[in-house]
């Protein structure tokens, strides 16, 4: 797992992907910080973090689209899948590398927190709960996007499908309002990432939401392993 993690981490920064992701994420979060806090003279850290969700939804597919699709395109998956490393470790290594790059980008948004702290007040509890929720939500999107990329053969369709999946899970609570069947409406609302993230942006440490995000990450990673395993039985190869 550590071997795969190291390679993926290195690959992010040997290619422009890592730099572009962190650069664009940081620049756009700066713009959001200006619009949500500086221009309105608001000292609310949690408002800033809630606005960052759209950015995460939009950009996480860039991190995950190459992880599985590129291996298939370059046929380097033949090396990984014929090595004495379990699929679980391969998927975990790749996921953790993407999560680490995301972690660096999230970490850099603390420059904004620092500015708020310098010119206003940022309570440690508020900071902890806000960043915990934001990090969990981002990691949830990454796991979901990794699963989506596991179904795809090419990177661009993988990124588009991942964004669609992110958007759908984020907006599913709006669909729930339109569904008249009670159990279906409840089920859709249960899946809504917006509803799950809401307690954190209100400054509440919700263990139900925390558990939901951890389960979402675990289930998506497990499903990714199953998808890769199933492909051994179904995929065609050159004769």
């Amino acid at each position, binding site marked *: 797992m550590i071997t795969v993690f190291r390679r993926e981490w*290195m690959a992010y920064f040997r290619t422009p992907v890592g730099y572009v992701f962190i650069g664009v994420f940081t620049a756009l979060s700066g713009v959001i910080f200006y619009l949500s806090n500086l221009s309105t003279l608001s000292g609310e850290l949690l408002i800033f973090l809630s606005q960052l969700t759209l950015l995460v939804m939009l950009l996480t597919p860039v991190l995950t689209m190459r992880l599985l699709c590129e291996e298939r395109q370059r046929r380097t998956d033949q*090396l990984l899948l*014929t090595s004495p490393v379990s699929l679980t470790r391969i998927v975990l290594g790749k996921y953790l590398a993407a999560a680490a790059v995301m972690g660096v980008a999230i970490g850099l948004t603390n420059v904004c927190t620092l500015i708020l702290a310098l010119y206003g007040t940022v309570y440690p509890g508020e900071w902890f709960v806000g960043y915990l929720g934001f990090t969990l939500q981002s990691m949830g999107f990454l796991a979901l996007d990794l699963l989506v990329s596991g179904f795809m053969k090419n990177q661009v369709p993988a990124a588009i499908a991942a964004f669609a999946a992110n958007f759908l899970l984020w907006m599913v609570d709006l669909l729930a309002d339109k569904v008249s069947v009670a159990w279906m409406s409840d089920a859709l609302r249960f899946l809504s990432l917006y509803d799950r993230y809401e307690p954190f942006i209100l400054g509440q440490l919700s263990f139900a939401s925390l558990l939901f995000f951890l389960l979402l990450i675990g289930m998506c990673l497990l499903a990714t392993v199953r998808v890769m395993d199933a492909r051994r039985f179904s995929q065609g190869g050159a004769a």
Partner: protein
Amino acid sequence: MIEVQGVSKRYGSVQALRDVTLRAPEGKVLGLLGQNGAGKTTLLNIITGYLAPTSGRVLINGRDPLLEPEPAKRELGYLPEHPPLYDEMTVEEYLRFVAALKQVKAGSIPGHVREIMGKTGLTEMRERLLGHLSKGYRQRAGFAQALCGDPDVLVLDEPTVGLDPKQITEIRALIQKLSAGKTILFSSHMLGEVRQLCDHVVILHRGAVRLDAPIGELGGRDGVTLLCTLQGGERRLVAAMNHLDGVRSVAVQPGGGEDEVRLRLSFGHAATPEKQVFTLCSALNAPILRMTRGEDDLEQVFLQAISE
């Protein structure tokens, strides 16, 4: 040792492999011959655990790569048709990564990688990015990754395809050097390569095994070809040769000199055909100017196997 037991593979409506059974004994080189599309790559992908068979099973030193993936794959080095290289890594970084994947102890990795680079002639290229290597060096890097972890079993898929003659010679020499003490299974559609490198040949056609035999037995197993240059009347000689014991065909070959006849005699079994030809020509007073065993027995065997 590699054992393939009744392996079949179906992709939708396409039957890629049909009940394939073969065995590559320890320390031997097994050549897998077949035309393009015969199912060679599919079979190798199943042997290495990259694909799962629809039915049947594979054992690598007694372990099934699907049921016991980690111990089975630890014994295995695989060079696919397209070497699985990460272009953004240097040769040395890549081999260190593969060595770690193959669970070589961290402390031993630098020495192990140095040794492999030495064996495969990559030492001078160790700082180069894989994406900047020529096709020949990329193939060497592919070989080098297959050797990481010092596996007992090597599976090589058309290792010389697309290389220039010099590179082909180098890669073949490398396989010969590696063959000592390892079980090697390699696929090819180049008969000369198989003849040069293999102890045993399996011919695959339309997903089924058509022939499975030690290379030394191929001539005796499927007959003997004699190429004779004789003096005498063509018709008389051809008619007489057709009555030899075990003769399957007599064909006149072009290129004979004045008053010379070049014949290609194919015998169905190995009952000392040279002696028969000598005795007959002596009786016919037809001098034998040259007589050699055919160098193309394997070609004949191959063509016959895939035409049946």
